[in-house]
C-alpha cells in the first residue's frame, strides 16, 4: 500500500500549493509514489456526507498531512483538529502556517475594527455576515493551536524543499532546516561599512545590470532595509536569495532565523549595533509582516 498524503489549506492564499505544483517532473514522481487521499484544490473528497452534518469534518487517515495557512476562524480550527487527528505526521507548510504570514498583519487591529473597515462603504448596510465567518480574536499560526511535527516556512517555500521534505518523511528520515540566515547564501559585496541612514525603496539599488548579483554591493549597506540578517535562509537554494536576484531588498518572508525569533527586535537591534539609524524606518511594525502570530503583533495598548 502506498503511503497516504492529505492536504488542507486554512487562512491561506494557495501559494504553497502552487509551489508544490511548480516542481514539474518531481511532482510526477511524487504522484507515482504516494496516494493522495484528501486535497480540496485537486480532488473531490468532501468533509461530510451530503445529508448535512453541519460543523463536522471527516478526514481520511494519512501518514503525512500538510496544512498551509494560519488559523483565523472556528472552521479553520475544526479542519486543523481533524487533520491532526487523522494524520500521523503533521507538517505546517509555509510562513502563514508557521508564523502567521501576511494575513497576521490584521493582528495589529482588534477583529471588530478590521471587519468594520472591510465592510464599510458597501450598500446593504455594514451588517457583517456572521453565519459564515465566526472569526477568532486574532490570526494564529498552526503550532499555537495543535502540536506540529515538521515546520517548513516560506512564502512560498521552495518547490524543491517541499519535495525533499516529503521524500525524507516517506523514508523515515528526520528533516531539519539549517538555521542560517538569508545572508548565508547571498553573494553581494559586503565591505562592513553601511550607510548611516535607512531609506525607503523609492529608487532602484545601485548596480550594473550587465554584471551579476555577486558584483553588487550589499543592499543593507546601500541603506535599503534588507531583512536578510534576521530571516531564515534557503529561498534560492544554494544560490542567491530570490529577491536579491531581482535587485530588491529582502522583507523576511521565510520568517525568523529560529522558530521563536522576533524579526522586528532582531532587525532594529542589527541596525543599532551597526550604527544605522533605526529611527528612519517609517513603519517598523511591518518588520513583523510575516511573523505576526505568537502574540508578536497586537493592537497598541492604551496607557492607563
Amino acid at each position, binding site marked *: 500500500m502506498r503511503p497516504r498524503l492529505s492536504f488542507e*489549506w486554512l*487562512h*491561506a*492564499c*494557495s*501559494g*504553497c*500549493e502552487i509551489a508544490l*505544483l*511548480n*516542481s*514539474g*517532473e518531481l*511532482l*510526477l514522481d511524487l*504522484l507515482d509514489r504516494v496516494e493522495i487521499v484528501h486535497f480540496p*484544490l*485537486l*480532488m*473531490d473528497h*468532501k*468533509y461530510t456526507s*451530503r*445529508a*448535512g452534518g*453541519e460543523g463536522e469534518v471527516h478526514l481520511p487517515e494519512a501518514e503525512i498531512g500538510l496544512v498551509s495557512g494560519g488559523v483565523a476562524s472556528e*472552521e479553520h480550527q475544526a479542519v486543523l483538529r481533524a487533520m491532526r487527528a487523522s494524520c500521523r505526521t503533521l507538517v505546517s507548510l509555509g510562513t502563514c502556517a508557521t508564523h502567521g*504570514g501576511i*494575513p497576521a498583519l*490584521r493582528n*495589529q487591529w482588534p477583529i471588530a*475594527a*478590521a*471587519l468594520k*473597515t*472591510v*465592510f464599510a462603504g*458597501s450598500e*446593504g*448596510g455594514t*451588517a457583517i*455576515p456572521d453565519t*459564515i*465567518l465566526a472569526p477568532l480574536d486574532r490570526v494564529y499560526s498552526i503550532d499555537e493551536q495543535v502540536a506540529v511535527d515538521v515546520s517548513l516556512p516560506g*512564502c512560498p517555500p521552495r518547490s524543491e524543499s517541499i519535495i525533499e521534505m516529503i521524500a525524507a518523511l516517506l523514508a523515515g528520515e528526520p528533516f531539519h532546516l539549517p538555521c542560517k540566515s538569508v545572508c548565508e547564501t547571498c553573494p553581494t559585496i559586503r565591505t562592513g561599512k553601511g550607510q548611516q541612514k535607512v531609506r525607503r*525603496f*523609492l*529608487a*532602484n539599488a545601485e548596480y550594473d*545590470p*550587465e554584471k551579476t548579483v555577486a558584483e553588487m554591493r550589499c543592499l543593507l549597506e546601500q541603506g535599503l532595509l534588507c531583512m536578510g540578517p534576521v530571516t531564515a535562509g534557503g529561498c534560492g537554494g544554494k544560490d542567491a536569495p*530570490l*529577491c536579491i*536576484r*531581482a535587485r*530588491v531588498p529582502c*522583507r523576511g518572508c521565510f520568517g525568523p532565523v529560529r522558530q521563536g525569533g522576533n524579526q522586528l527586535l532582531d532587525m532594529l537591534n542589527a541596525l543599532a549595533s551597526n550604527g544605522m539609524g533605526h529611527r528612519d524606518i*517609517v*513603519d517598523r511594525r*511591518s518588520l513583523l509582516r510575516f511573523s505576526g502570530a505568537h502574540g508578536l503583533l497586537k493592537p497598541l495598548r492604551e496607557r492607563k
Partner: protein
Amino acid sequence: MNQVISIHPVTRIEGHARIDIHLDESGQVCDARVGIAALRGFEQFVVGRPAEEIPRIVNRICGICPWMHHLAAVKAIDGCFGVRPAPAGHLLRELCQVLAHIHDKILHFFFLAAPDFVLGPGGDYAVRNIMGLVRQEPELAAQVVRMRQLAQMMLERFAGKAIHPVAGVAGGFAKPMREEERQGLLADSRVLLDFASYALDYAKNKVFSRFCDALQSLGTITTGFLGTVGHQGALRLYDGSLRLMHPDGTTVDFPANEYERYLAEQVEPWSSAKMVYARSWGEGFSLDPDAPRGVYRVNTLARINVCDRIATPRAQAELEEFRGRFGRPAQGTLLYHWARLIELVYACERTLELLADERITDPAVRVPATPRAGRGIGHVEAPRGTLIHDYSTDDNGCITRANLIVGTTHNIAPMNLSVRQAAASLISAGAVDDEMLNRIEMAVRAYDP
C-alpha cells in the same frame, strides 16, 4: 421535507467555498447559495503602511495570480505619487502580467477542470482528478506539467520570484532585461505558443465535442459582461478601458478610475464575499433567478464577449470560429473553458510581441518616486476577472484608505445564479446523487473562482 444539501468544500477551485441547496417540501430546489468563508482583511492592514511597500504585501491576496495584485497595486501607487513609469518598466510589467496568465490558464483547464470532461463528471472521485489524468493520459499530463513549470520558471528566471513577485516597483521595474535573457524568453515563448495551440485543438476535438449540450446549458444564465479593451476594441489583459456590456448587447466604455460611477458593492448576510452589480444600469440589484437585475460577469467569457476583436492572429482566428458557433454575447457558462483557451493563445502571442519590441531591453526601467498625498486606481484583467486596486495616501506617502475589488467578486452574484439554475435543472423530487452534485460544482468551476 425541507432539506439542505451541502457541498463542502467545493473542490477543484482556487479558493474556499461551499454550496448549500435548499429543497422545499416536495423536493424541488427553492434556493441555492455559494458561500465564501475567507476573509483576510487586506483593506485594513495596508492602512498606515508606506505605499511603495504595498505591492509586496497585496500580492499575497492570491498565490495563483499574485502578479495581478502586484501590478494593479503598482499602477495605483504610481497614481498616488503622480509618477509615470519609465517606458521599459511599463513594457516589463505587461510582459510579466501576460506571462503570468499562461501558467494560470494551464493550471485551471488541465488540473482543475479537465478531469470532469476527460474522466467524466460521474464515477469515482478518487479517479476524477489530475492524478487520474496522469494515469489515463500520461504523455499529455507530463507535457501539461512541464509547460506550466516552464511558464513559471520564465518568470522566476527573469524577475526573481514567480509566486509573490517583488520586481514591480513604484515608477517602473526593479531590474532591466538583458539581451541574452530576452533571447531565452523568446525561445521559451514559442514553445508555449505551440502548446497553447495544441491545447485548444485537443480541447475542441476531444473534450468540448463530447459535451455540446452541456456547454450551452449547464449553469447557463443571462447576464451582462465586463472586460477591458484597447485600441479599436481589441481584447486587452494589461490595460485599456473597461467595457461594460448590458445583457441586451449594448456597451459603454469608461476609464478604471471612474469605476465607482458604474459599479457598486453590496453585502449579503450569508456570504463574506461582497457582491458587485452594475449601478449604472439603474435597475438596482436582484438575484431573483427569473428576473436578475444588475448582474454581470467577468473573466474569460466576459472578455471574449465584450471585445470587438483580438489583435493577434491565431487568437483572432479562434475568436471568429467561436463567435460563428456561439454568437455574441455567448451566455453558456461552460464556454468559459473554451474562452480560457483562446485567451491562452492570445497571452502567448502577446508575450512574443512584447519580447520583440526593441525597447524592452532599455536599461532605464525606473523613475524615482517622491511620496506625497494622492489617490491612485490601478486595474488589470486578472485571469479571474477585472481587478481594481484603489489607494489613497497621506503627505508621507502612507496608505490612508484602500478599496480592492478582486476578479472573483464580480462573479459572486452570477455564480449564485448559475448554481441555482444547475441545481434546479438537475434535482427534482428530492432525488440527488453524487454525479448531480459534481455537475452543480462544474457550474462553479467554469468561473474559476
